[in-house]
């Protein structure tokens, strides 16, 4: 009898654990909607970015800076830029790793944020949610490219933005984490290589 009970306990316990295992294993990320469902038209952007490669990024971009976020503008639409929400970001530059060494302030553009669009009596929300987003006061290292209008943009969206914490550790999207000193060394090595080649 005791043996039977033990089997029941074992069976139930295993079943419960299998269920728990499956629940934990299925890490399904159901992100919340970024849109107002009452709106009639919704526009959004999802982009494919060049994968993070510090050598490639360093060689590709015209500007790499370390600085802090001084201002984050409100999202807006421009008639000549299509259905894309944009934000202007002001960076107070503390150090230029690549580019014009005299730069002290930079204005960069990101495609992101939400903007209300009213057209033909229809209301909509234009939203971009996969850009590099900024908060005032953040300390950052940025790889900056230029778009076809000549604006500075964060190269490869969130892949080109590196947040620097008080311990001088750098983090970025995709579980990237590295001491600032090491990232600087990689950038310097890439700069050296591109100068030599």
């Amino acid at each position, binding site marked *: 009898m005791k043996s039977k009970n033990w089997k029941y306990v074992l069976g139930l316990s*295993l079943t419960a654990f299998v269920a728990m*295992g499956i629940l*934990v*294993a299925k890490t399904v990320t159901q992100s919340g909607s970024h849109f107002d469902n009452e709106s009639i038209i919704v526009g959004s952007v999802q982009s*494919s*970015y*060049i*994968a993070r490669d510090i050598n490639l990024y360093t060689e590709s971009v015209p500007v790499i800076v370390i600085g802090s976020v001084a201002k984050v503008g409100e999202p807006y639409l421009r008639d000549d830029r299509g259905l894309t929400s944009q934000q202007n970001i002001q960076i107070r530059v503390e150090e230029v790793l690549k580019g014009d060494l005299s730069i002290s302030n930079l204005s960069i553009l990101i495609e992101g944020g939400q903007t209300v669009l009213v057209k033909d009596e229809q209301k909509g929300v234009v939203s971009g949610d996969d850009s590099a987003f900024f908060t005032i006061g953040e300390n950052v290292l940025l790889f900056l490219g*230029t778009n076809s209008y000549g604006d500075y943009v964060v190269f490869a969206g969130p892949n080109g933005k590196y947040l620097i914490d008080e311990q001088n550790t750098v983090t970025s999207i995709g579980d990237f984490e590295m001491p600032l000193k090491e990232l600087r060394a990689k950038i310097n090595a890439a700069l050296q290589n591109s100068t030599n080649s």
Partner: protein
Amino acid sequence: MGRRDSVTMKVSFLRITALVLLHLLVFSFGTVTTFAYSTSGYSWSSSPIPYYINSAFASSFRTAMKAADATWDAAGADFSFSCGSTACTTSANPNVWSYSCDLEKSIGYYNRGDTGVLAAVNFCAVGSSLAEADTTLNTYYSFTTTGAAGKYDVQDLVTHEFGHWLWLLDLSSSGSPSYCSSSVMSTMCRYMYPGQTYRRSLRTDDKDGIKAIYGT
């Protein structure tokens, strides 16, 4: 303590140990088969969804794009894409730049400059129902259909972009095991290396994603 008690204790200890080991085995199996996808509640209300490809693309590019469509069609979900015409082509670029939704779903091109953005998808939706999706490849960069080194593979890229049309979102975490590394990638990983072709094929998590949205 008698000999009988001692034996009973040993047997109990062995049983408990076996139970713990079994649980660890089940748990580790579960974590090894971790899958991930990301959605946000929008979907097409009908199927198949007709689409067009800008006729300015080379024939080999258009073939690669249709192969990307076929990959999702074969994912086992109750959803498919279809060519909007026999040739599958249109002379127009996506209209997302003119503030209107014409309901035509198309793949076109646009020079976004040296932004690190290889392609982008724009949407129009009414409520939670998608009405239009367009993809634009950034012509600033060089593309290939052969996975050639230094260029970006069209089929890999467009398979990913079609995933966005289904409203599967980008994955960026390395996870455990990694599903967004330089050697293993889910199709919905947002990163792309020159010469990369991994995302031409769907992984189980990509298929789980489309099945979760559209059923089987």
